[in-house]
């Protein structure tokens, strides 16, 4: 009799563990939001919540691209530099009416995809760890942005652009970066879950050898993923330059690590194979809520990054604690 009791006890405990792992991102998020709204009721003000989403938009978008890359078992450290090149190049293309905005947008998008393509191509064909390739291109692309501008910001004076990517609001309420984020989020989710591309990414990340034997073209999928990460970095870069009304060669230096943090907090495994698009949304929200809540409480940036690091390590410890208990 004691035996049966014990068995059910064990099972339910492990189910709770599983649920905690599955929903740990949401749990952390809800806990943080509860604490902040108790300490600072203004935190829950809808305008503040929308501001949080606006401020995290460029990290989220780069993070969504990063989710594919990390699920594939890689890393892309160059997204911040790509974002800077995009902002600078766009500002220079439209300066003094040299070119209308729409073709300039197309050019920087294609250019960013090319930079991403180079990451993937060099890593695949040169058989180099993506960490190393993108570490190098992080410097190279940053160098390009700095060389193009000799280190000085280039102003952007088109009001429509600033509205579309930066400070504009739909219905005078929802910030446009939030809307762009939502679109990119849904597209990413569809790609990840409902297309061959996402399926291949997950399969290759889980076991590249098995994917190869199953006939999946690993090189093509990898290069496509880095190209896509380049495109997503481009959108982040456009938002950043719209928010700042100019192309800044130094912008986005934290973008790669912040987006990686968001992905990891969202439960995507750094070893590859297991990833979650909505997890990345949750992970980026955690970091944004943390920044916002702490700012409201008057904490300085120094304290904020200290706490950010603590939260990352706690989240990963939580995963391991419940995993090893199973």
């Amino acid at each position, binding site marked *: 009799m004691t035996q049966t009791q014990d068995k059910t006890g064990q099972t339910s405990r492990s189910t709770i563990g599983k649920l905690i792992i599955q929903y740990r991102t949401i749990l952390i998020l809800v806990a943080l939001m509860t604490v902040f709204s108790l300490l600072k009721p203004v935190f829950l003000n809808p305008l503040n919540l929308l501001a949080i989403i606006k401020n995290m938009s460029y990290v989220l978008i780069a993070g969504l691209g990063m989710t594919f890359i990390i699920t594939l078992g890689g890393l892309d450290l160059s997204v911040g530099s790509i974002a800077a090149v995009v902002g600078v190049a766009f500002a220079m293309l439209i300066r003094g009416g040299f070119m209308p905005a729409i073709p300039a947008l197309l050019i920087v998008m294609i250019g960013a995809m090319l930079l991403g393509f180079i990451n993937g191509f060099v890593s695949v064909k040169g058989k180099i760890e993506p960490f190393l390739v993108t570490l190098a291109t992080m410097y190279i692309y940053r160098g390009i942005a700095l060389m193009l501008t000799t280190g000085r910001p280039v102003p952007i004076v088109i009001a429509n652009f600033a509205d579309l990517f930066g400070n504009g609001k739909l219905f005078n309420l929802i910030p446009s970066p939030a809307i762009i984020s939502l679109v990119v989020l849904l597209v990413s989710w569809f790609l990840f879950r409902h297309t061959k591309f996402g399926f291949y990414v997950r399969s290759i990340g889980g*076991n590249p050898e098995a*994917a190869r034997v199953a*006939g999946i073209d690993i090189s093509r999928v990898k290069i496509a993923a880095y190209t896509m990460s380049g495109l997503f970095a481009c959108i982040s870069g456009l938002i950043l330059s719209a928010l700042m009304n100019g192309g800044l060669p130094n912008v986005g230096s934290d973008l790669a690590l912040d987006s990686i943090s968001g992905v990891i907090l969202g439960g995507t495994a750094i070893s590859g*194979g297991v990833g979650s698009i909505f997890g990345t949304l949750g992970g980026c929200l955690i970091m944004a809520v943390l920044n916002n809540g702490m700012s409201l409480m008057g904490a300085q940036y120094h304290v904020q990054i200290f706490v950010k690091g603590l939260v990352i390590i706690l989240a990963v410890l939580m995963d391991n604690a419940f995993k090893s208990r199973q």
Partner: protein
Amino acid sequence: MNLGEDILELRHISKTFPGMVALKNINMAVKVGEVHALLGENGAGKSTLIKILSGYHQPDKGGEMLIAGRPVTFRNPKDAMEASIHTIYQELTLCPHMTVAENIVLDKQDQFKGFLQRRHEYQAIAARALEDLGQSEIDPNWLVKDLSIAQQQVVEIAKAVTSKVKIVLMDEPTSSISQNDADRLMDIIRGLRANGVAIIYISHRLHEIGGIADRITVLRDGELVGTVSNSDVTEKDLITMMVGRELKNVYPKREVPIGDVVLRVENLASGELFKGISFDVHKGEIFGIGGLVGSMRTQTLEALFGMRPITDGKIFLNGEEFHPTNPRQAIKHRIAFVTEDRKKTGLVLCLPVYENINMVNAQQPSFAGYLNWSKLKAVAESHRRTLNIRVSSIEQIVSSLSGGNQQKVALAKWLDFSPEVIIFDEPTRGIDIGAKTEIYLFMGELAARGTAIVMVSSELPELISVADRIMVMQEGRMKGILSKEETTQERVMSLATQKAQQPSHISTGGYRE
């Protein structure tokens, strides 16, 4: 403790994992100075029992373990060691860059006083232990990485003996050593037994158990079938106890009409790995390839599937020349490959069953790369039913399945594009007899549909019963092709091991075309 008394007793030991019961109410006893064999199919619960005895797993509440009559609980492997149980695992756990002597004293540092190493004492202890085991040709100063597997095993045993253990657990100790070394190991085991050590010996090899064990405990599906005295039973009795049924239907063979040649290989070579391989496989035929480890059978299959460069020779598919340079091309030509190591090359373990089954199928053209998962799940479900894959749902993650079910998933992913040639590399390695039989039956079904099957197997009874013809390879050369009538275990073995430069005659054993 005197000879014949129980040194170890298990009472009502059970072990439940989330979603499965690994052991149910096991009662057994091991006597001082006996070799007690633990026997059972894969998945019978042997590994779980070993892990409980060595402190890696804790049994469910309600069970009791007694050593020399006193109840014990192991919270971790160290507790088990301190209770004088020493486990020798299949994968040896020595430090390769340390000397034999250092390895032997590593777990007894408490005995030595002071901060400094005492090299000479270490060496003396090691030398004495090795001499006691009759293995004085192993020098205590050698580095472990330079020893053979069999010698490393001896070092493991020396490590146990010097700890004054009372119980030694050996998990498949002969699985990776030669016959000579195995014979020597048996002598060592007899020596330990004479010194009053109790040995729990786990092996699949029935004849080995027959030669060494005093008593045998058989497990099946996590339950105790019984403990018998070796002198009272035959191998056949043991098999019946293990599988719970008569063995005669383990290798079912379906007679299928043999059709035209589908796959023809002429003088195939890949660098120095293998050379001069020629054979053909007909519709409905199961073509076996036998040979020892290192005969390059797997490498030959990989060349057929585009995973290894072909440097000479030709492959024809339905009369047309075919030169694969990657698996994708082979798949396009309707060749499927069920690989030897399902975990390494056959499955993506972190993905669910239905995604693994659809890994090839999903590559069919679709609009904008859209995957209709509800349709693909239905496909997976139908394969699950055909192959009798036992899962709670096709959404289950593959890593949580048993070996047999994993192998069926690895096979299922090839079914939907109706391959003309299926290559099986060791299709039943490490899976239980029930699942084996199901896979043979399914191979028969595939043959009946007109598929040409190439199968590599190291298990001779399997190769001989299932294959229509058998090519034997040795060190990258083909030694002959035997027809069904010509095949005996002895002929296959002699072809696989003969040292002659040229085979006296290459029998083609072919069908008349």
